[in-house]
């Protein structure tokens, strides 16, 4: 599971700027599009840091005997199920 998430993050991080047209009902603005490409990479990197931070906390918690649920702490924004079909 962790490997899958890790792969997903790294794939996301590397693949942030790719090429494919998008369509939109309203004009998103070039400024917004360029900004989103920049932000996405940083946001994914921060998500990765957050993920490892929670892993680290879990590791420490295990050392002292309790075992918090990483998935619960991360929240639903980090799915670990099979909902990855668009991230290949």
């Amino acid at each position: 599971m962790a490997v899958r998430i890790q792969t997903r993050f790294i794939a996301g991080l590397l693949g942030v700027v790719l090429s494919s047209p998008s369509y939109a009902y309203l004009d998103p603005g070039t400024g917004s599009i360029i900004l989103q490409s920049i932000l996405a990479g940083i946001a994914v990197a921060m998500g990765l840091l957050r993920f490892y931070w929670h892993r680290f906390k879990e590791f420490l918690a295990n050392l002292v005997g309790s075992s918090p649920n990483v998935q619960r702490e991360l929240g639903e924004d980090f799915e670990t199920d099979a909902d990855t079909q668009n991230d290949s």
Partner: protein
Amino acid sequence: MTTVAPEPGSFRDHRGRVFYVDDRVLRTVMPVAIDDFEFVRSSGLVDDLIADGLLVEESRADEALLGRAGADAALILEHPRIPFVSYPYEWSFAALKAAALLHLELHQRALRKNVTLTDASAYNIQFLGARPLFIDSLSLRKYVDGEFWAGHRQFCEQFINPLLLRSVVGLSHNAWFRGALEGISADELSRVLPWHSRLSWNILTHVFMQSRLQSSSSHSEAAVERARSRKLKKIGFEEILYGLHRWISRLQPKSRDATVWQDYALDNSYVDDEVARKRAFIADFVSGVTPGLLFDIGCNTGDYSVLALESGAGYVVGFDFDTGALDHAFRRAQRDNLNFLSLHMDAANPSPSQGWMQHERRGFGERVQGDAIIALAVVHHLAISKNLPLDQVVDWIISMAPQGVIEFVPKSDPMVQRLLSLREDIFADYDEESFRSIVGTRARIIKSSDVSSGGRTLYWYERS
């Protein structure tokens, strides 16, 4: 006779429109939208969002209901009616924040089902009490792998930037948003934010960088071409939404000091016994009339709105111009899950009909027709502070509901004395006898009662 009236604010989307058929709200789904419509519903997302109270309910309606207006539609949906339609420039900071968080939560949940939103308009959200509700069910459509968040700029202009205006600068968004119906641009906001606000990563990027990137790229064909060819990974999209949700949920108004009216409930010229008499009169009125929809003009933090609900009113919409009091009232309704919506309004200058054809966003006068109204400690502010003729003030209040309670505050009252302390008393006709006569010629006075030793009097009227 059935009348079919298009909603004047629903014309931009070629995928469907909203119509009112008498009291019913119907939405056409055009053939161009039918694939998305079916994809989104088969994903289970719509049912989940409705069940969790994020999205307006919908059911299939008979196509014949719309007559010719629905002739080209693939199908017709029916939605429940919203008790009172409001606009983002009438919301408090707390309400705009709640709407922003709803939008982000809905979009995050949609992406998990491979659904996205066509736009990020704040006008797609309405309130049921303090609970935001997404009403534009047709703006949900299939997510295309790699696409950008089309509504990002609009989300900034209609949610983030107005919130930052209050959170960083300390100014409420209402007047600016009302003047610029599509919100506050990054370029405009970047000119009023203090330099040190760049130290916030989110402000630096979503406001300053976006503004700079927009101005440097919008006239460059090469930049537009590059933007057209870019792709956003879904995980990046999700992370941007997640980050914004986290950030916005922590935003607070800059000044947490009590505003003028927030303390009104404590700092006024009533004593406890007088408050009790006033409350008893209002409770008696509301339980006698049992209004479905009651307006509270000058609601302050909502004490009498809540009393009205407790006395049997179905839904209360309160109006005030004090931003601090409105935030307090909104949070109170949020905390106790009340059917109470508090909105910003300057009684001397209520929201006009405006937007495209001057009809896209309907004015206050077009929307306020209730079953009952209470206007407590309001008349003297309008008549004396704003120099409005007393008869017009009474006309205005009585026009909004067939029954109501209006409080008259005489000149001898300390609050009125305070209003007159620095100005000439030009209000020779401002007395209770004139007030009673003005109300009496327009409505039947069911009951009146002195509620303070200083001569404050409540009048219960019924329009003839």
